[in-house]
């Protein structure tokens, strides 16, 4: 079949895909089209079928009915091992092989693809550098010698090794502490801005989904309940389930977490630029509105100074502007 089209906007298509385990239906006729270069997050409570959906895409689980196509080609028509070597796969840090060094773990798929040794070594160095791991220090280490965050970086590097177009990530940061988790999320977003992979990311953590996703797909009991951007979901949750996932009455804060201070601040007037000393409290323009509100609450103030990335004073944020969006920009 010559229907493989590597430039079409849609790279992964699920068409009425169903998975039954015995009598139970884990995934119920879902239809989903994922455009090339999108970071698509499947989110839902445990047992909602999100992981099953992910694992059907690389045939770790065979679907019972419907069609899954990658680049227009049905995945059933591709040899399953060849298919998987084309798709990056990252799971929780325990998925590293404990008896292999970091370098050997990362080089796994290139080795399966029979790349020459020199090319594998070069690729491993490149990936270690990309993930911010010092080659001299980490290449020869074993997984148990790594911290959770380091192990997960290695897991991501391993998934990226053969430069696959698609990356499947199954709760990759699920076992990490909140701080490490946050820094790895930032790291993945930074990588994605450079690499433009198509990423399907599974998580049960709505905050993670809101932060990472170009598009969020909310699943419940094997069906897709709602899909859309973070802002779309927050503005209009489809039902009570989505609303509760979004945190119910915390929704306002979650929305604030997605809004940058720069969007609400008042730029400095020339008079202020003269060096009027206001409060010593300041936030960065790239910080979220949520962080700014937290600072105001904590210090009991109703305005903050805003710095840019270089630490230059660029504006101020007033409580009234933070709470109510104004359409005026001076």
């Amino acid at each position: 079949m010559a229907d493989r089209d590597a430039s079409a906007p849609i790279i992964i298509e699920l068409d009425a895909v169903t998975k039954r385990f015995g009598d139970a239906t884990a995934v119920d006729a879902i239809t989903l089209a994922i455009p090339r270069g999108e970071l698509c997050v499947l989110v839902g409570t445990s047992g909602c079928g999100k992981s099953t959906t992910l694992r059907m895409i690389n045939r770790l689980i065979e679907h019972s009915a419907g069609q899954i196509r990658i680049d227009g080609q049905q995945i059933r028509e591709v040899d399953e091992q060849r298919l998987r070597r084309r798709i990056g796969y990252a799971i929780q840090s325990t998925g590293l092989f404990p008896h292999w060094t970091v370098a050997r773990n990362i080089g796994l798929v290139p080795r399966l693809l029979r790349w020459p040794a020199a090319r594998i070594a070069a690729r491993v160095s490149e990936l270690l550098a990309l993930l911010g791991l010092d080659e001299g220090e980490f290449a020869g280490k074993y997984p148990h010698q790594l911290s959770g965050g380091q192990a997960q970086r290695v897991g991501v590097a391993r998934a990226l090794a053969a430069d696959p177009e698609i990356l499947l990530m199954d709760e990759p940061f699920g076992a990490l502490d909140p701080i490490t988790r946050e820094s790895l999320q930032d790291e993945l977003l930074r990588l994605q801005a450079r690499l433009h992979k198509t990423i399907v990311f599974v998580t049960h953590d709505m905050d993670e989904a809101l932060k990472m996703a170009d598009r969020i797909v909310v699943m419940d009991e094997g069906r897709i309940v709602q899909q859309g951007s973070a802002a779309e979901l927050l503005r209009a949750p489809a039902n009570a389930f989505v609303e509760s996932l979004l945190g119910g009455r915390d929704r306002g804060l979650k929305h604030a977490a997605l809004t940058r201070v720069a969007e609400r601040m008042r730029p400095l007037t020339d008079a202020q630029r003269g060096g009027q000393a206001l409060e010593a409290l300041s936030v960065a323009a790239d910080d979220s509105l949520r962080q700014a509100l937290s600072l105001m609450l904590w210090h009991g103030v109703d305005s903050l100074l805003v710095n840019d990335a270089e630490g230059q004073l660029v504006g101020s944020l007033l409580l009234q502007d933070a709470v109510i969006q104004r359409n005026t920009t001076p």
Partner: protein
Amino acid sequence: MVLAATVALGLPLVSVQPNRIMPGEGLTLWSLGGPLALAAVLLLLAALAWLAWRPTRRALTLSLVLVGLCLALLPWALVAVAAEQLEPGMTSARIGLGAGWWALLFVLLLALLELLNRLALAPLLRWGLTLALALSLFAALMSGGLDSLALMREYHGRSAAFHAALRYHLLLVAAVVGVSLLLAATLALAMRRWSGLRRGTFSVLSVLQTIPSLALFGLLLAPLAYLAARFTWLGDLGIRGIGWAPAFIALVAYSLLPMTRNAYVALDEVASEVTDAARGMGMSPGQVFWQVRLPLALPVMLEGIRITAVQAIGLAAVAALIGAGGLGTFIFQGLGQAAMDLVLLGALPIILIALLVDGLFSALAEQLRRAQGRGDAHG
């Protein structure tokens, strides 16, 4: 520890017998070496006690050296005693090892084990230390200075038989371990493939394990004798109601449970995340097994081989009762003739081999774990 050693000093260390039958005359440390020897030993004990008081790593290492040295010198002390106590030409007189000597050996070995545990040396270093002690003993034996030892008198009486029995014993154990490893691997793989097999297989193996060894030999006697009579080619192979065949079958039957259980558990316990990742990366089922599952299971499987080998070494002694030969022959001969030294001639090598095999496999498994980067905290 110190208390036990002091008690040992009061007991007779060795006894001198004019011949095999006459009871010997016990000699204590005092009567052997006088006050000087006693003082030397007491000084040594005091030194050890002082070192144990503040167990820093250096003190422990020093104690290890002292204890190791004592153990290595023990056979040589015996050489000296033998030379002094027996006049040349007394060909039938012999030195027996007394309660004190055994107690001393026991206490020293205990101290050695405790020190090795506390120091947590690399497994191969530990194995090397054991080997050095064994070599010292061997050298003392070879020097001829111990020929007057009762044990050695028994040995010289039947050295050809001893070597044949030793070879036979080792061969039997090696064959049993090899065959049961193959069978156990097959069973474990079959159980992983068809999970329904598991319950049945393990219950059969457990029942086999509970049959007393002598009863199992007896149970095998009749059918094997019948088969050998029925098919003469079996008889030509040496398969009869008694002899190596029933012993071999019974030992394999006993070995299967620990071996299969360890092999199965080892393969099954490999973290599912790891095999899941392996499959998800595009490894074929064969690659997952040979490159991931088996290497990760190996240390636990080695543990199974160790248990089986040690068990087989001991059980093979009982097999001597049904004419299977091996070192057990001397034990039962000795028991029959009330000659304890002959019993020891069979029993001591069995214990020694069991200890060496046990140590070797433990060291191998631990070394493997460390090589795989999964050693414990102090790795």
